[in-house]
């Protein structure tokens, strides 16, 4: 037994039987009279088949929409050959299964290159026009007869059009179906949010097939992750009727049998009303308004405590070494952590991987403020509102409230301050004699 050709397979798939072919012939009113007339014009069409086919493809080549057909040489050659065969078969008088399969093969080729049906129709019309011209030229002396023959031929042409468009539509539908299948597979994810907590977002249409997929995926995930709580979010389901509700309930029951609790979230106001009107009892379900609430409830059930930290988590310096602390000896100071100004007896040297205390304080403060938790106010705030000691720091005065602590307070300070006071010394001020002394010691 020989293999089924793609055209044969397609014919069976499309349900085109001999009976169906007969019906198609009746639709265009193709009778034995027509077949006889067509036989009379066989000669001119067969003679011109080559030229007519070339004209057909030249015409197609003019359109951008038909470009893919001309991209592949092998496909184009096959199409040309099929078209020549078709033109000869068109006047052959036998419009049975073999003829239909020949047509289907060409249609399959067209659909493979994504030929636009409108472009095909245009080109086919052009072809029939040329065939008509050839027929009329052949029957110049008996134009009426030639015209009638051409009309008969046209009936076959319409059968052809029906077949080709059927193939194009069928193939398109098949593509759509495949895509739908793919979307269905994609659209039932089960996500693990935390240890033993799963999220099952359901979006779009829930039909029997998909409900089964959802249940299957979920139960597998429950087994694999030993989940205790599942949040099923139905925000993306626009309409829930009794059947969908039933599917959801069954999924919930199945999960419960495996020891997982299900929280349903995201039932919209509209859906809630229609479920109540329908009379579907969902009290058995643990329902929560939205996904956020669902997750919170789930965490509570498992025993997670989620608390806001006063600041963002601090990373220890060990986790993230300071960029300055490279592994291996420092190139500039191979002896070790050398800090300019460090000397024996001074504070222990700052660890090289640790920013200065002031910088750390500042970084902590600003980080905290960024996160929205005000741990320490900005320095300027202290200067305005803080305790007197903090306020004073900005002015650099001594707590005892006497003179300026560091440096001159005003441009002319030296002149006035340095003046001898009542009971004071004469001569140059102490501050001038000894720059290290502090002004408030003057008295």
């Amino acid at each position, binding site marked *: 037994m020989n293999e089924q050709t793609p055209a044969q397979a397609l014919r069976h798939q499309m349900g085109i039987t001999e009976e169906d072919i007969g019906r198609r012939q009746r639709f265009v009113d193709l009778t034995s009279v027509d077949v006889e007339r067509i036989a009379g014009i066989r000669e001119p069409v067969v003679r011109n088949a080559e030229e007519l086919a070339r004209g057909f493809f030249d015409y197609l080549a003019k359109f951008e929409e038909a470009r893919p057909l001309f991209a592949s040489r092998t496909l184009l050659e096959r199409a040309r050959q099929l078209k020549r065969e078709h033109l000869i078969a068109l006047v052959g008088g036998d419009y049975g299964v073999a003829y239909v399969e020949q047509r289907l093969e060409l249609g399959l080729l067209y659909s493979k290159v994504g030929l636009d049906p409108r472009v095909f129709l245009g080109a086919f019309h052009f072809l029939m026009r040329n065939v008509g011209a050839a027929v009329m030229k052949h029957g110049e002396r008996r134009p009426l007869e030639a015209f009638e023959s051409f009309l008969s031929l046209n009936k076959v042409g319409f059968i052809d059009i029906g077949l080709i468009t059927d193939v194009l539509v069928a193939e398109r539908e098949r593509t759509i179906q495949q895509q739908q299948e793919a979307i269905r597979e994609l659209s039932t994810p089960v996500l693990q949010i935390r240890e033993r907590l799963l999220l099952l977002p359901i979006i779009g249409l829930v039909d029997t097939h998909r409900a089964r997929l959802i249940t299957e995926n979920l139960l597998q995930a429950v087994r694999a992750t030993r989940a205790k709580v599942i949040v099923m979010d139905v925000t993306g389901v*626009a*309409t829930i009727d*009794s*059947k969908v509700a*039933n599917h959801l309930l069954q999924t919930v029951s199945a999960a419960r049998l495996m020891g997982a609790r299900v929280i349903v979230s995201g039932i919209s106001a509209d859906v809630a009303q229609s479920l109540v009107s329908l009379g579907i009892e969902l009290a058995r379900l643990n329902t929560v308004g939205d996904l956020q609430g669902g997750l919170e409830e789930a965490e509570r059930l498992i025993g997670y405590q989620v608390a806001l930290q006063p600041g963002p988590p601090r990373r220890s310096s060990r986790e993230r070494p300071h960029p300055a602390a490279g592994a291996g000896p420092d190139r500039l100071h191979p002896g070790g952590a050398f800090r300019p100004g460090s000397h024996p007896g001074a504070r222990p040297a700052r660890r090289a991987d640790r920013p200065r205390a002031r910088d750390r304080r500042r970084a902590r403060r600003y980080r905290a403020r960024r996160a929205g938790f005000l741990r320490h106010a900005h320095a300027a705030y202290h200067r305005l509102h803080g305790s007197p000691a903090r306020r004073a720091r900005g002015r650099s005065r001594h707590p005892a409230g006497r003179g300026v602590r560091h440096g001159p307070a005003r441009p002319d300070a030296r002149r006035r301050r340095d003046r001898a006071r009542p009971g004071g010394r004469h001569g140059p001020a102490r501050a001038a004699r000894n720059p290290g002394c502090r002004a408030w010691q003057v008295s």
Partner: protein
Amino acid sequence: MASELKLRVENESDIVAARQRGRELAASIGFSATEQTLIATAISEIARNIIAYAKRGDVALDIVEQPGRRGVRVVASDEGPGIENLELAMRDGYSTGRSLGMGLPGAKRLMDEFHIASAPGKGTTVTMKKWRGP
């Protein structure tokens, strides 16, 4: 106006199409989002019944008018086995299939008017209407 929309119902994607059309039609004469959902759900229920019991049928949607009010009419008809005991079929929780048994009584509660005609072997026709506003 008689802009009747007749939809063939043969598989589950036809149900989706039918209730989508129902929603659109309801929206076009000003039903609120909630009422649209109620109508869509009712269409969904009876269309599911068609597929479950009669395999195929038709759902016709149109707009009906009465003095002072407008509404949506849904006529679902099939040539399936029909319903033997209508009273039982309209009871909550009764189902000859393996469903919740909420379809017909639920649809009745979802809509304002509900009429069902059926006899064994004669198919089933469900006519239901929802009026807009008070």
